[in-house]
């Protein structure tokens, strides 16, 4: 048999390691790899991609019926929802403060603190909290969340140009991890990381959100910007070596493929299975681009994607 010399890569950089959860709370560590995703022959991959489940602080009004039915009544109570998410295999919980959005309820500091406390007491897995995505509301509620969770090492997002100062300040003060979010743009991602670290946030307190496009709705843009960022990071650029967080569930379940059952050609197949597979494939494709933390919504996806990740760990 002719000899085959396997070409391995020797990277000078590595992905920063980020831990969520501390002080009695279970902790989950992501990142730390010294090579491209799941290429064990090339380097070391100390931590698998973590799977987070998204819950919201109010029952979602517009969710696909097949998603809502998977959770049942639990969506009416964040604590119950959190517990159910853990039952379904969530390693991390993501709490989305939808009610703080001006269009949804415009709730404020008191409600944000209350729901965060409730969820922190209900489960012992690490927590991520996302504000409503409107700069002045984020700046209003996220500090309250940070303070009430002080010492628990949660992740707080999203950080963008307009509100990063507030988020960074509270993350430093209260020991949390920040989630900068960039619009599928390598330079903006890097720039935001520079702004955050210049403001004093340590390298191991950042999870990058490159903005996730669902399968068919921008997946390949997210995929390629992630590959480029990861390659730059492994090549030694510390400002692009942060682990990735991908909010898959949010973009997938917005799409027609995950919501509509009637009036479609037969070639679309059965809604329930199609919607779940849509989420699963978006997630597992992004694993190949370096996702370190996948946020999913459907319990079946959680189970199947976690199983795929376990297999990728060899």
């Amino acid at each position, binding site marked *: 048999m002719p000899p085959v010399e*396997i070409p391995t890569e020797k990277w000078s950089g590595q992905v920063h390691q980020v831990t969520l959860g501390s002080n009695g709370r279970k902790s989950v560590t992501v990142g730390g790899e010294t090579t491209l995703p799941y290429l064990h022959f090339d380097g070391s991959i100390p931590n698998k991609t973590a799977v987070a489940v998204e819950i919201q602080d109010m029952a979602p009004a517009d969710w696909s019926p097949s998603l809502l039915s998977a959770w049942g009544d639990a969506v009416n109570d964040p604590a119950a929802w959190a517990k159910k998410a853990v039952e379904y295999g969530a390693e991390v919980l993501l709490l989305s403060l939808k009610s703080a959005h001006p269009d949804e309820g415009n709730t404020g500091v008191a409600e944000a603190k209350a729901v965060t406390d409730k969820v922190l007491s209900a489960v012992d897995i690490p927590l991520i909290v996302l504000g409503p995505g409107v700069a002045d509301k984020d700046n209003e509620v996220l500090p309250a969340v940070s303070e009430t969770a002080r010492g628990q090492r949660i992740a707080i997002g999203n950080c963008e140009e307009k509100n990063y100062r507030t988020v960074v300040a509270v993350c430093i003060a209260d020991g949390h991890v920040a989630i900068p979010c960039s619009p599928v743009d390598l330079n903006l991602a890097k720039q935001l990381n520079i702004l955050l670290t210049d403001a004093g946030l340590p390298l191991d307190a950042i999870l990058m959100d490159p903005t996730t496009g669902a*399968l068919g709705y921008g997946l390949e843009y997210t*995929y390629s910007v992630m590959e480029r960022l990861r390659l730059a990071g492994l090549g030694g650029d510390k400002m692009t070596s942060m682990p990735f967080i991908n909010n898959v569930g949010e973009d997938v379940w917005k799409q*027609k493929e995950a919501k509509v059952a009637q009036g479609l050609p037969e070639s679309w197949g059965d809604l329930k*299975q199609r919607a779940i597979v849509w989420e699963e494939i978006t997630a597992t494709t992004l694993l190949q681009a370096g996702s370190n933390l996948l946020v999913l919504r459907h319990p079946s996806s959680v189970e*199947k994607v976690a199983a*795929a990740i376990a297999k990728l760990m060899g």
Partner: protein
Amino acid sequence: MALTGVQIYKFLPKTNCKECGFPTCLSFAMKLAQRSTELSACPYVSDEAKQNLEAASKPPIRLITVGTGKKKIEVGNEVVLFRHEKTFVHQTGIVYRIKDSDADPVAKAKEAASYTIERVGIDMSIDGIAVQNDSGDAAKFAKCAADIKAAVDVALILISSDTAALKAALEVIGDDKPLIYAATVDNAEAMIELAKEYSCPLAIYGNGLEEVAGLTEQATKAGLEDLVIDPATRGYCDSLTALTQLRRLAIKKSFSLLGYPVITFPGEGAESADDEAMLAGMHIAKYSSIIVLDNFLPAIVYPLLTTRLNIYTDPQKPIQMAAGVYPLGEPTPDSCLCVTTNFSLTYFSIAGELESSGFPSWLLVCDTEGLSVLTAWAAGKFEAERIAKAIKDFKVADSISHKKIILPGGVSILKGELEDELPDWEILIGPREAMAIGSYLKQNWS
């Protein structure tokens, strides 16, 4: 990796005779390195040099064709490890496996081969049917292959370890140039002979890359060039490893013994149809040239075809929508009118949000050569004149009873100019982000 100009120069006569059309041998060598000229342009290159240079300028992964019809599978000829470096070129062939012992193989084949679904104006379908000799009966296998060939127009793969059964099948469908699967250490000689006799591409199955390389060496020494390789990996971890190593060997080392398209079987490593789908998706993203599926369900094939479409889209040439007026959610003449560009992602973003907004609407898509709203505006390809012309060209006035148009917030600056172009229209400024259109319409359109 191709030779550099300087490396090629070593093999040239170095006489600077100019007969190749270039001033010096070095400049000719540089052009050869860029593949913008042919070695044959030089009348004086030695045979030895020709051999060396041809070996180095072979594509790193041979282009293989399976089938002969309109829907033949063409895979190989990839030149990059990452799509963003240039693009992936020949999209993964998707094949559905049927066994000759199945209840109604022809019906299954027809259903799978005729499946089609449209996305972004492109009709997607699978590329082939693999017929597996599970019955152990050569005549049954041959008949099954023949019946399937008569019923479908896609490429075929013949799967059997029994050369006699393969021969029987090739006798009836050999003209179709099916892929013969597969030569192994146990039967390579006979399989190679079959492939030569019927001029069909041959799959090589080996346990580990060295075993595969040994078999491809045997095949090429016997005169076969059209090979597809199967490194026998069936799980997530081992197949990712093998596929990556093979692509690196081809692109970075020009390792010709393994410079062939790869065939994978995600169903064999899977615990469920969903699991097969995820593994298949991984194979599409990471270097598999042909995937053979064991489960055919529209709810799964549609996402896989979409994965393939996404991964194989040329990053330099984004997919565009046809310009025109698109009705969303059954609009009436009173429904709102929004305008946007024809970049497919832009279209899908706003169309999706409009569809879930609860407001039926009309979406006017302008031809901006596939650029997004802000990019097109910056390039002068999304301006008032173009929008006004689109309104006229697509007879927007025929569909709506009002004269209001909602501009994407990012180009609110166009309002003044658009008012000049359309003096009896009301120009409304929508949100900057597609996601906010629902709330915008709630507040501004009733």
